[in-house]
């Protein structure tokens, strides 16, 4: 159980790791391509917490802080030109490809994860947070440091791409 009353001084570090290392790892795994990279990213996040976590004044934001830090660390290791297009909702195809939940059930987790990795990088993080973390759109926007409308449009487009890719992997017959 995490003591959310204060930052590093009163939050038990091991308790913090216990509570968040799994979800952080899953988020990292959805962003990166390998288990090793995801582990490094997760470790780095907690390392940053150990050094800078005391600067966090609002203990209720520990979770958002950790996910934001992980995402920043991920972006640091990526070359990107900073010209991510702002995709408006009107551009998103409204009709999702049709795929049955039972098809997903038959797939292994690796295949679904691979589908996530096939997405444009722009859509991967918001979609991972959408599926993995059960955090609000407002929190997702905070983690990714983009406007809420951008989060919504990226999730919509990302879902369409993901389902399309999964549909292509649907076993025949």
């Amino acid at each position, binding site marked *: 159980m995490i003591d959310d009353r204060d930052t*590093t*001084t009163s939050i038990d*570090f*091991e308790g913090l*790791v*216990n509570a968040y*290392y*799994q979800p952080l*790892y*899953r988020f990292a*795994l*959805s962003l990166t391509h390998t*288990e090793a990279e995801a*582990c490094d990213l*997760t*470790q780095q996040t*907690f*390392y940053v*917490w*150990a*050094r800078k976590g*005391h600067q966090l004044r609002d203990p209720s934001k520990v979770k958002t802080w950790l996910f934001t830090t992980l995402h920043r660390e991920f972006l640091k290791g990526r070359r990107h030109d900073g010209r991510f297009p702002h995709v408006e*909702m009107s551009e*998103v195809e*409204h*009709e*999702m490809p049709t*795929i*049955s*939940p*039972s098809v*997903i*059930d038959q*797939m*292994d*987790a690796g*295949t*679904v*994860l691979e589908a*996530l990795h096939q997405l444009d990088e722009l859509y991967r993080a918001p979609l*991972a947070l*959408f*599926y*993995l973390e*059960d*955090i*609000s*759109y407002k929190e997702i926007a905070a983690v990714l440091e983009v406007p809420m409308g951008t989060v*919504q449009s990226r*999730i*919509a487009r990302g*879902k369409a791409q*993901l*389902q399309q890719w*999964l549909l292509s992997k649907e076993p025949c017959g």
Partner: protein
Amino acid sequence: MDSQQAKQILGRYRPGVDDDDPQFAEALAFARRTPELSRWLDQQVALDAAIRAKLRSAAAPVGLKTRILANAKVEPPAIAWWRHPGWIAVALAALIVVAMVWHRTAGFPAYRAKMVAFVSREYKLDLKTKSFEEFRQALAKGKYPAISALPPALAKVTLEGGCLLDWRGHKVTLICMEAPGQGDVWLCLAERGTVPETVRQVGKVGKMMTAAWTDGNLVYLLITEGDEAELRRYL
């Protein structure tokens, strides 16, 4: 709102997570009234749940937690250099030194120096009288520090009057007297607590000899133009 618009919104809806999010309320209400849309939503929710379950099934490798705890040893929050105990001690010591200097400059010596400086210059008597009783009544009226009678040792000096002075917002009475053939003698009176207190002491300040003491509710400062021997005749 039509079905396309509702689908666009509900495609992002997560039951149990986004139920309180107002952006979905209207679309959800619309879906409840539209069977085809409702079926579509059920399928989308089921599909999302299936994908979510697969993604969440990924577990961190054994040993990751141990590595995190080992590698990210919690360092105590960086303490600003000025908050370091050593520096705090240095700062306190410096403060004590400053306080001592302040006491020397702003304590009793400062008060004494100011009074000596005042009588050393040309000044005008606020009350000119040779009657001590008249002088005492004037002081009482102005609520200035006063004594009922001059000390017996000062009985031979002649009262000339007095000045009403101020020491950092507090009233000080200056009694001006003349010792025949010896020069002027001054006695400063201040209420205890309004000027720095002092132990009984005799000292020379510039060309003046001074004696100070505290008695009852008053702090006394006697100033003469003569030497120490003369001063002691008035004590």
